[in-house]
């Protein structure tokens, strides 16, 4: 028996009509830049494994105008991902303390706090 599920045709521009749908698509688009930057990190690790000269070449590429521009674009999308991800945490992960629901603002606030702490630790570890 062959299984042939019905696939409804989707209009590919359905999300262009409404602001909230566009915002949703931009939020989803952040994953492209998170993925691309992960690729850049992996490239960096490979260059690191190849030795001193390869690493210095990698740093030079990161510092080139194209490298900086690419990363600034990635940073904008990554920050948008952080903000939207924190905003949905009370809905995705509702918390209760002693039977009382934790207010959404407190859950979001804790995530921003964690963001600040992690960023500070990474900056100090990187030697700022």
């Amino acid at each position, binding site marked *: 028996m062959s299984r042939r599920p019905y696939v409804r045709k989707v209009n590919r521009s359905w999300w262009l009509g409404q602001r909230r749908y566009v915002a949703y698509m931009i939020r989803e688009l952040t994953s492209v830049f998170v993925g691309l930057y992960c690729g850049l990190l992996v490239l960096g690790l490979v260059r*690191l494994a190849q030795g001193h000269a390869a690493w210095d070449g990698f740093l030079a590429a990161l510092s080139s105008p194209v*490298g900086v521009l690419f990363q600034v674009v*990635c940073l904008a999308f990554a920050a948008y991902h*952080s903000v939207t991800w924190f905003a949905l945490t009370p809905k995705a992960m509702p918390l209760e303390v002693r039977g009382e629901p934790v207010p959404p603002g407190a859950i979001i606030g804790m995530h921003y706090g964690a963001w600040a702490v992690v960023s500070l630790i990474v900056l100090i570890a990187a*030697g700022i």
Partner: protein
Amino acid sequence: MVRSNKPILWLPFAAGGLVAALIIPVLILITGILMPVGIVPLPYEKVAAFAHNPLGKLILFGVVAFPAWHAAHRLRMTAHDLGLGGGVAIKVICYGSAWVLIAATVAALIMV
């Protein structure tokens, strides 16, 4: 009954979303702005020492693997939203690239 594989896909997705949200922006700030202007030089000896350390390897693996999986899963879902889902090709492209990145990370961390 067919068991759903959704939790297996979803848990690293959620973990990746959180890891990406917490750590990727500051990493881009360092490699894309602070390093190029010379505030954080990222010398080879220092970064290599971090990658030699077992805890450092674990951190580097987590920082790459989880967000990569997150991005792959999210891209696949967005492709579905755009009417491109359903086929095997999207799955192979999305999860395949995540696995390539994860494998390359493991290889680099072993060789470094």
